[in-house]
């Protein structure tokens, strides 16, 4: 059209950076989330390598015990609060509006605010390393240890940690509100709730968890801050306070947070499996109800982290914890039967999804052991727990995130990722992961406690620790391959086209990358697979 005015190219390139810094486009914000999360993933990964290097042999070779405390505390803090949770929120940001056929999130400027709080929180945490040492009381920051100002380990760094976590939590809460309003109010015509893709459903349940749980840890952090800085007595038993109270409030958030960290990864896997099996998801509604059940049950199990305190009602929390295995098992059946009889395309996203399935299964089973009270009394605070949580959060969430990254990278950038490098990365990561964390089961059973910088050379833990360290560096090598693949694919990856995977959901009905307004036109939405319907003629299925 002659009257259409195009923005001059020169102006566009000059303001490209400015445009990224001030964007309210959910896709750009989503990509910013992903980049920011990967930066902190690599920082957290370096700290993990530090931990593994120190533990490779008995004795203190590389760091002091105090520095070791900082390393494992900040490793967990970065990985949980600045990598897994925001990474999944970032994918949600990019994918959810596209999958429900919306032009953007409901509150685009609040969306930008949610994002920018994260690097700010991250910088505060990083600053703590140069202001007299970071937080070092573990990522759980249990009182009274975290309140003891006499300890060098809990100086200014602990306060910065509290402030950063409140910021990051506020970011999560605002993000959750944004997701929920977007899902409830911005769906395209025809996109009923029970036609929403599973990824959207998992982000919905996650958002409810964030909305209900995150403010509670904010309250715990604020009480901790008041105790530390203004002479409060909340968690100080010597003045009538209650140290167990901190644990209760902390875990009331931090157990649901476990599901915040895994449900969207389950959503990603549930997008990948049907596409690469050429079948619809088996039991779509059962999956949704299982997700909701996990979310609801997630609020009733927090005290299983506190069995050994003797201050919680053991049978209730034990039974509720076992109950969570039921909806999780339902999902396992959903996934396995989705692949059953399908035409499996063994591409990299599917490999990572299979990695998720197998590793998360192990993480579920070794978790069920600890749900049993007598077993937990033996295993509490040993390396068994470290093995369990990494099988869930690394074997589960990180494999899911990697799968999602390979799956949606073509949509986000318009380029395919390299399959050969991708598959090599998967194999290396899978082997490295199991070398690192499988021996920790054995170490836990042998009685090795977590959070120790040194151990006796005669305890029989030497070989397994060395093996775990070797595995840790194998994971690092696989991440090097990943970075190489991203670089390679951005520079010279094959052009993806709109729908390289012949997928099902609406994000594949627009260009790669999508325009700022997302869709030129939407296909008719008559099922949870509108793009499949459009490709294969009108659907007859109606939910």
């Amino acid at each position: 059209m002659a009257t259409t005015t195009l923005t001059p190219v020169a102006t566009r390139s000059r303001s490209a950076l400015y445009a990224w810094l001030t964007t309210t486009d959910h896709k750009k914000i989503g990509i910013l989330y992903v980049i920011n999360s990967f930066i902190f993933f690599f920082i957290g990964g370096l700290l993990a390598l530090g931990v593994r290097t120190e533990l490779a042999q008995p004795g203190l070779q590389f760091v002091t015990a105090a520095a070791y405390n900082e390393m494992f505390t900040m490793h967990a803090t970065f990985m949980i609060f600045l990598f897994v949770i925001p990474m999944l929120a970032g994918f949600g940001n990019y994918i959810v509006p596209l999958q429900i056929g919306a032009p953007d999130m409901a509150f685009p400027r609040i969306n930008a605010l949610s994002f920018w709080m994260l690097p700010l929180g991250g910088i505060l945490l990083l600053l703590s390393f140069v202001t007299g040492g970071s937080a070092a009381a573990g990522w759980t920051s249990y009182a009274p240890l975290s309140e003891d100002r006499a300890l060098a380990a809990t100086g200014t760094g602990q306060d910065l940690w509290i402030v950063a976590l409140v910021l990051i939590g506020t970011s999560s809460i605002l993000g959750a509100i944004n997701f929920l309003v977007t899902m409830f109010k911005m769906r395209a015509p025809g996109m009923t709730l029970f036609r929403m893709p599973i990824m959207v459903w998992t982000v919905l349940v996650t958002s409810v968890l964030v909305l209900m749980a995150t403010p509670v840890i904010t309250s715990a952090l604020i009480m901790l801050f008041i105790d530390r800085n203004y002479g409060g007595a909340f968690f100080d038993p010597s003045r009538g306070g209650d140290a167990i109270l901190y644990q209760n409030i902390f875990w009331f958030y931090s157990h649901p947070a476990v599901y915040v960290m895994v449900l969207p990864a389950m959503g990603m896997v549930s997008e990948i499996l049907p596409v690469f099996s050429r079948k619809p998801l088996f039991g779509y509604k059962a999956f949704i109800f299982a997700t909701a059940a996990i979310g609801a049950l997630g609020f009733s199990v927090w005290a299983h982290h506190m069995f050994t305190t003797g201050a919680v009602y053991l049978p209730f929390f034990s039974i509720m914890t076992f109950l969570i295995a039921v909806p999780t098992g339902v999902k396992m059946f959903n996934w396995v039967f989705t692949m059953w009889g399908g035409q499996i395309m063994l591409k990299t996203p599917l490999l990572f999804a299979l990695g998720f399935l197998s590793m998360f299964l192990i993480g579920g089973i070794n978790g069920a052991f600890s749900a049993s009270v007598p077993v937990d009394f033996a295993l509490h605070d040993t390396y068994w727990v470290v093995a369990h949580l990494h099988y869930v959060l690394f074997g589960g969430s990180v494999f899911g995130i990697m799968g999602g990254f390979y799956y949606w990278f073509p949509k986000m950038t318009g380029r395919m990722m390299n399959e050969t490098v991708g598959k090599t990365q998967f194999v290396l990561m899978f082997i490295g992961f199991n070398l690192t964390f499988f021996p920790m089961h054995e170490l836990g059973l042998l009685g090795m406690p977590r959070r120790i910088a040194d151990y006796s050379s005669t305890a029989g833990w030497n070989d397994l620790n060395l093996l775990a360290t070797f595995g840790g560096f194998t994971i690092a090598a696989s991440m090097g391959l990943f970075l190489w693949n991203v670089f390679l694919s951005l520079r010279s990856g094959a052009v993806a086209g709109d729908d390289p995977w012949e997928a099902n959901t609406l994000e594949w009905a627009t260009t790669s990358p999508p325009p700022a307004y997302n869709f030129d036109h939407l296909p008719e939405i008559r099922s949870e697979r509108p793009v499949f319907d459009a490709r294969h003629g009108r659907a007859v299925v109606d939910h």
Partner: protein
Amino acid sequence: MTTDSHLAIPEEHNPLASMPHDTHGGISNPVLGMLLFITSEVMFFGGLFAAYFSIRASAAQWPPNNPQTNEPFHLQVLPIVSTDGIISVSFVLIATILLVLSSFSCQYAVWKIRSDDRTRFLRAMAVTIALGIVFLLMQVTDYAILGSEGLTLSSGTYGTTYYTLTGFHGAHVFGGVIMLAVVLYRGMVGQFSSKHYDAVEGASLYWHFVDVVWILLFSLLYLLPGKTPTT
């Protein structure tokens, strides 16, 4: 049509024009957002209340003794004149009544903007803000009086819970006053009408929430009978 459609957004790509989302009826985006935000605030205060109940339940005596006088702390509801003629001032009951009244004036403002009565809407909004500010001033005065009597943030669990709970409530009143002031300003420049008043509705919901929290706090801190140690 140009080949690169990403560069320019033609008229028909106006998101709202091209995609008729269900904007008719139902709850509006800002109001739903505010309700969800209030949900998160309920959970935040839930954490603080849980701490209060837990500490209170495990204490042998509540309120505990004031180290300055060796008498139990006492939060006074009514202003009283003692036998020696000294008036003990307590603003809390007056402040409570004013805050409850402000909820009514706030709702009145919402009803008035719904019927396009902008003058009464603005007046009611101004009254609400004034009541909120008076509440805050009374709270500050009360803090000063209580502090002089020995009740401080660092004077044990009683002071810590009292100041944390009422302090965070006060901070929320302050936030609410700012929110209402923005609404008042936007109303004065004519941004609201019976067809467009989501921000008024949202701010009003928030104000009611803050009011309800205070009623709970007032009942807990001032009215709920304490317990004496069983000897």
